[in-house]
C-alpha cells in the first residue's frame, strides 16, 4: 500500500482490450501538483488511462491510489464522449449538484457564477443538446467544474473549441493549476508546451516517459524525438 499524504500512483495495472493484453504491469507516479499532460499517438491508451484514473474502468489487476491532501479527491472528469441530459444548459450544469443534494440557492449561485465567468450566460435557457459541437465541449468543460473539484481529468478539452474558447479554458487552467491538480490529454503539442508542468508520454499501452516539460523536450527517446519533430501526434 502506498503511504503518503499526496500521491497519484498506478501500480502493476493490467488491462485487456478485445482479449489482448493492452496495459501490462503499467506503473507510474504522477505529480500531485500543476498540470500533467498525457501525450501519445492515436490508440496508445491515453483515454483508457484517464478512465482508469477516474475509476470509470476497473483494471483486471493492479493498484490505483490517489490522495490529495490526505483525502480521496473530488474529481471532475471531461470525456471525449460528451453526454447531456435532455434539458437546458442551466439544468445540465445543475445536475451534478442536484444529485449530491445541494440546495437550490447554492446551485443557482454556483451556476450563475460559472456561466458569467466563462461568458456563457446568454445560453443558459437553450437546450444543451442543440448547441454546436464547440459549445457542447465548452459547456461540458464548465460542467466538470460545478462541484469545485480538486482533481481535474480532461480528455482533449479543446479539440472542438475555437481560439477564443480555447484561450478561456487555458487561462482558467493556468490560473487554477496551484489549487487544482490537472491531468489532461491533448493532441496539440503547442498546447502541451503552453500548459504542461509534467508530460507523460504513452505508446501502445506502455508509458515511455514521465518527466517535467523541460526534460521531456530534451528527451533522447527516438519516439519522442520523432513526435517533437513532427509537431503533432501522428
Amino acid at each position, binding site marked *: 500500500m502506498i503511504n503518503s499524504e499526496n500521491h497519484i500512483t498506478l501500480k502493476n495495472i493490467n488491462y485487456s482490450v478485445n482479449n489482448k493484453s493492452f496495459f501490462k504491469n503499467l506503473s507510474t507516479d504522477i505529480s500531485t501538483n500543476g498540470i500533467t499532460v498525457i501525450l501519445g499517438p492515436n490508440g496508445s491508451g491515453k483515454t483508457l488511462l484517464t478512465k482508469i484514473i*477516474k475509476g470509470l474502468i476497473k483494471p483486471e489487476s493492479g493498484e490505483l491510489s490517489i490522495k490529495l491532501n490526505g483525502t480521496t479527491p473530488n474529481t471532475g472528469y471531461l*470525456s471525449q464522449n460528451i*453526454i447531456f*441530459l*435532455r434539458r437546458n444548459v442551466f439544468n445540465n450544469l445543475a445536475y451534478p449538484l442536484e*444529485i449530491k443534494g445541494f440546495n437550490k440557492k447554492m446551485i443557482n449561485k454556483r451556476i450563475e457564477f460559472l456561466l458569467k465567468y466563462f461568458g456563457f450566460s446568454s445560453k443558459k435557457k437553450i*437546450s444543451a443538446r442543440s448547441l454546436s459541437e464547440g459549445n457542447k465541449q465548452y459547456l461540458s468543460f464548465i460542467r466538470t467544474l460545478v462541484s469545485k473539484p480538486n482533481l481535474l481529468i480532461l480528455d482533449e478539452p479543446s479539440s472542438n473549441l475555437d481560439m477564443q474558447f480555447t484561450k478561456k479554458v487555458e487561462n482558467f487552467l493556468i490560473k487554477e493549476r496551484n489549487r487544482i491538480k490537472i491531468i489532461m490529454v491533448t493532441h496539440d503539442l503547442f498546447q502541451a508546451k503552453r500548459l504542461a508542468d509534467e508530460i507523460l508520454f504513452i505508446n501502445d499501452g506502455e508509458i515511455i516517459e514521465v518527466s517535467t516539460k523541460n526534460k521531456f523536450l530534451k528527451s533522447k527517446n527516438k519516439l519522442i524525438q520523432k513526435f517533437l519533430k513532427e509537431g503533432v501526434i501522428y
Partner: protein
Amino acid sequence: MNVLLESLNLVFSFDPDLYEIIWLSLKVSLFALTFSCFLGLPIAGVLSSTNFTGKKTIIIFFNSMMALPPVFVGLLLYILFSQTGPLGFLEILYTPSIMIIAQIIIILPIIISVSTELLQQMFDEYKEMFDTFEVDLISKIRTTVFDARISLVTCILTGLGRALSEVGAIIIVGGNIVHYTRVMTTTIALETSKGNLSMAMSLGIVLIIIAIALNAIVMVMKTISRKNSYD
C-alpha cells in the same frame, strides 16, 4: 346513413344511459392505467438501469405477456374468482373491480415492456455520464424517467387505448350488467347482436373521438418538447 345520423344524435343529445356507459369505461380504464403506471414504471426503471441474473427472463416474460389473449385472461380470472374458485370468497366477479384487475393484467406488460425498451436506450446513452457523476440507482431511474417523460406518455396512452378497446376479458368477468358493469366495448358487441346499430355506432364514434383526442394530446406534447429542443 340513418344509422350514422341517429348515432350522432345520441352522442350530442347527451343521452344519460350512453354517458353512464362512457363514464364507467373511462373510470375502469383510467383506474387500471394508473395502477399499471405506478407498478410498471418503477419495474421498467429497475429493469433498464440494472443488470442481474434473470433480467432477460423477466423481459421475455413481460414481452410474451403482451400477446396474452384477453379472453384467456377473462377465463383465468373467472376460474379464480367464481364462487367455487380459490378467490371466490372475495365476491368480486361481475363487478367493476374485477374488470379493473383484468385490464391491469392486459396493460401492465405493455407499460413494462415498452417503457423498459425506451428507458434502456436512454440509460445506455446516459451511462458514462452517470458513472462520471457517481449517480445512485434511484437518481438514475428518476433522471431517465424524467427525461423520457414525453415518450413515456405515448407509451402510457398506448396502454390506455388498449384498455379502452378491450372487450374479451371484461365481458367474461364483468358480465355486461346494465347500469353496473356495462362499458363501451361490451355494449357495442351486445347492441350489434341485437340489431341496435345506432347505439353501437354512437359508442364507436365516442371511441374514435377518444382515440383522436389521445393522439392530439401526444402530438401537442411532442410539439412542445421539440419547441424546447430538449430531445
